[in-house]
């Protein structure tokens, strides 16, 4: 193996993305407990849902006193892009059927970004599995640490953890705001969410904002980025979606 061996480079990239993404599992764990979930419930989200944006959305709606149905819907809608990632990865990785379920579970922003950045199918597979497994292990380890720490903290407001939740969502959406359409949808979503908060049950204003996006997406033309946000962790070390977890 030379230093320029693409498989070695893919593994290195996978490890650095895994560490950067795994670390902010701490914030998810702490925020989840602050939102009122138990440590086992927090771990169940990281192990079973394993998609950062969906997980943060679920605890955000539950913590805000929203209906459980709205929490489920928000999490599922934010997971929709993972389905599109799968469609990109299937021809790229060309996996046997028995590997498709584990591959699907590990299909998130980060593993897709690393896999699609590789020069050959063999190296793409290396990048996908190393990133997927690496993020999965570290995300869960750090979720547990954050949840255990959050459990001992007491009132989350004293530590500004309620403000951390908004910051976490801002960091998740940040790399996706390139382009006028995305910025316009983001602004409209804020207006709709805040404008309907006094009128509708908690959790519903967020879902209503998604309706705006569907309408805009259907009536506008031109192509939106289909891959993970291009300024994602693979290039900057910034997490796009733990969100995808």
């Amino acid at each position, binding site marked *: 193996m030379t230093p320029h061996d693409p498989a070695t480079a893919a593994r290195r990239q996978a490890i650095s993305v895994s560490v950067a993404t795994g670390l902010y599992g701490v914030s998810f764990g702490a925020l989840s407990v602050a939102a009122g979930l138990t440590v086992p419930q927090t771990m169940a989200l990281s192990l079973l849902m394993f998609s950062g944006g969906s997980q943060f959305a679920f605890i955000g709606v539950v913590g*805000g006193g929203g209906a459980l149905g709205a929490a*489920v819907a928000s999490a599922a809608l934010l997971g929709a892009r993972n389905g*599109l990632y799968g469609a990109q990865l299937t*021809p790229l990785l060309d996996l046997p059927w028995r590997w498709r379920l584990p591959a699907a579970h590990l*299909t998130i922003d980060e593993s897709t970004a690393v896999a699609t950045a590789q020069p050959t199918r063999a190296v793409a597979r290396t990048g996908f599995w190393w990133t997927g497994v690496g993020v999965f292990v570290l995300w869960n380890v750090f979720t547990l640490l954050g949840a255990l720490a959050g459990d001992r903290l007491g009132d989350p407001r004293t530590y500004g953890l309620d*403000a951390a939740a908004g910051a976490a969502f801002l960091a998740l959406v940040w790399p996706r705001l390139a382009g006028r359409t995305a910025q316009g949808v*983001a602004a409209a979503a804020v207006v709709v969410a805040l404008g309907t*908060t006094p009128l509708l049950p908690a959790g519903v204003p967020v879902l209503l*904002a998604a309706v705006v996006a569907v309408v805009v*997406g259907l009536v506008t033309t031109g192509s939106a980025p289909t891959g993970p946000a291009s300024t994602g962790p693979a290039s900057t070390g910034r997490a796009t979606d733990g969100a995808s977890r």
Partner: protein
Amino acid sequence: MTALWGALLLAGLACLVIKLAGHVLPEHWLAQPRVARVAALVTVALLSALVAVQTATSGSQVVVDARLPALAVAAVALVLRAPFVVVVVLAAATAAGLRLLGMP
């Protein structure tokens, strides 16, 4: 508590089914540009709405408190390309500090 567990497991299952759909459905179903565009914008809308609700609402009221300046600090950190953990910690520290000074 049981209801929360049920919702949690249902949401986890839904997310896995969506991921699996991408790996087993014929590609062309999901390869339409319109599908990709709507999915990308839905993600932006949901995350943006969550930023607003988490920062500026309390129950059914729109409020301004220490979370708003904390979000501004987070935005500055993002402009400076700070890593996720740093962004979140800076926001938390800002809100905690402002509350020590008496801001709600």
